[in-house]
């Protein structure tokens, strides 16, 4: 869930990404600067009331875009997951690219649904230390205060606890541009490695759209932390990226394309 919200926060113009349950309780959030847990919890009530009123006229609503003078709130209906309803909320400023945001939110929503209702739910429950379920009471917060924003995933009604698990530490390094793509926060050890990252992003983009570059950067940071990416880490990177492609046929195509590129 952390990675899905972080991928949204990485979009230019996005200031916060939150998941609420049907009662307006904050399930997870990731935000910049002032968009901390307290503020996100504060808006859960009125957001929940807004969603309730939407459902009176639009039971099958998918997306709501509320435009304000100084920003936008995007709501995505995550639907009924394991007997509960959830909503993804994204707060953005005027620099948001709406087209990119629409794709990114769709991708994130698909992943969040799986996490909330599928196999990821038990993993989340385990990581939260909860015996009730992924969103039940009794868990603890994980992953606070990482990267450029603060992040929390917790069951509704739980209290923040200590603990962090850096995933997206900012390296401050620059990716070699020899691959034809520029990446701002990861570094390649040599031109060949840089070109390989570019090829991975290009192939991944065929399946996941414009968020591909973000996924590659995230995967490199998970694999390398502050170190530079080398070709030796290529297989591990491809394995990480393949996990972002949901359709098995597409995933096989992605792996085949990169394998073919390697043998050239």
């Amino acid at each position, binding site marked *: 869930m952390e990675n899905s919200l972080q991928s949204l926060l990485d979009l230019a113009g996005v200031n916060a990404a939150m998941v609420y349950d049907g009662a307006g309780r904050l399930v997870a959030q990731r935000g910049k600067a002032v968009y901390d847990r307290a503020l996100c919890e504060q808006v859960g009530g009125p957001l929940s009331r*807004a969603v309730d009123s939407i459902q009176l006229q639009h039971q099958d609503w998918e997306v*709501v875009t509320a435009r304000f*003078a100084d*920003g*936008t709130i995007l709501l995505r209906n995550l639907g009924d997951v394991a007997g509960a309803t959830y909503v993804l909320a994204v707060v953005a400023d005027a620099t948001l690219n709406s087209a990119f945001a629409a794709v990114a939110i769709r991708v994130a929503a698909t992943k969040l649904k799986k996490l909330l209702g599928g196999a990821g739910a038990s993993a989340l429950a385990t990581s939260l230390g909860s015996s009730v379920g992924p969103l039940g009471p009794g868990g603890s917060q994980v992953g606070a205060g990482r990267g450029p924003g603060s992040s929390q995933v917790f069951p509704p009604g739980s209290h923040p606890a200590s603990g962090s698990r850096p995933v997206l530490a900012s390296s401050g390094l620059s990716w070699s541009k020899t691959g034809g793509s520029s990446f701002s926060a990861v570094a390649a050890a040599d031109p060949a490695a840089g070109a390989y990252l570019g090829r991975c992003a290009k192939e991944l983009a065929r399946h996941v759209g414009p968020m591909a570059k973000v996924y590659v950067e995230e995967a490199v940071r998970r694999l390398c932390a502050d170190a530079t990416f080398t070709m030796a880490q290529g297989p591990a990177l491809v394995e990480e990226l393949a996990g972002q492609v949901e359709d098995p046929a597409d995933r096989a195509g992605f792996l085949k394309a990169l394998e073919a590129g390697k043998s050239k």
Partner: protein
Amino acid sequence: MADLEVMAKLQGVKGAVLGDLDGAFLDAVREPNGEAIAAEMGFLSSSLLEVGEALGLGALGTVALAGPQRASLVVLRGRAVLTARVEPVKALPLVEKSVENSFQEWT
């Protein structure tokens, strides 16, 4: 009332309702369910205004709602709440753009 008529004439708008932030129904064009829509969209708008105020986003301008079968556009003008029923759903961006242009003319 003029705002309502202008909105109702936009391409893609099948019906329109004028209400206020308290949910009161004022008028409707080609929309038999006007009172319920005015109440619900008034409540929606006031709830979102509360959210925007907490997040420091300023005044609420429009709310676009989209689903596979139906779409609506809510426009706030002071305390007035205009709601347009948009069909087909894919016409929503066009209606949003038309409303944006119309606002420039109205102001």
